[in-house]
């Protein structure tokens, strides 16, 4: 059991899910898309959310103070001139 936190479209909410830290990043992104599509994210329901909506999001796996597994899906925030021009 883990808590998945998704931040999207100005909302951030938690969902208890039957998964753990062993879940792959790809699995977590796929689950997050389903959660948002199904309206499981408080204040946000996007039935037609793109399959790749979270491609540029990263996953942080952290333990809460109570030892609970918390998985955060958040946007990546690196910048850099070295990655090549558009």
């Amino acid at each position, binding site marked *: 059991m883990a808590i998945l936190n998704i*931040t*999207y*479209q*100005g*909302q*951030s909410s938690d969902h208890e899910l039957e998964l753990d830290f062993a879940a792959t990043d790809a699995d977590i992104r796929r689950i997050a898309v389903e959660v948002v599509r199904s309206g499981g994210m408080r204040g946000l329901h996007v039935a037609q959310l793109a399959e790749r*909506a979270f491609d*540029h*999001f*990263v996953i*942080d796996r952290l333990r809460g103070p109570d030892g609970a597994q918390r998985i955060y899906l*958040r*946007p*990546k*925030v*690196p*910048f*850099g*001139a*070295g*990655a*090549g*021009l*558009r």
Partner: protein
Amino acid sequence: MTARRKACVEVCFVIGRGGAILWADASDSAEALPDSRARWEAIWRHRGELEAIAHSHPVGPAAFSAEDESTMQAIDGALGRELRYYVVAPRHTIARTGERAEVITPEPWWAGRLRLASGMVWRSRWFVARRDPARDATRGRREIVPSRSIKGD
């Protein structure tokens, strides 16, 4: 690695209303500012007053990189609105909101601070430090003189 690259680092400013600098962090590289949960937490924490995110390209170019583009897309998606983004290069500052990019003149007040923090003031648009060995020997300082002829970015 050139001396210039060694001396410079990429720096990120999170900018709020009135040009207030709400957060700043730096990398140890002139060409990359790695992902950072702390940076994202600062962006989210200040989302109510957030107006822009700026970062430096201390050795150029005055353009958004592929990494910049995908990061801007991800942040806008998470915040649910289009932020304004800036790249501060040695000679120019560019900005974009959505798809529209432009060279910013005059520059925001904090562009100079960003250049200073990035270690590129010595070759910035308006000033460059020129060593005069004789003068250094007698006065022990570097002279700052205007220079618009420097080619860069």
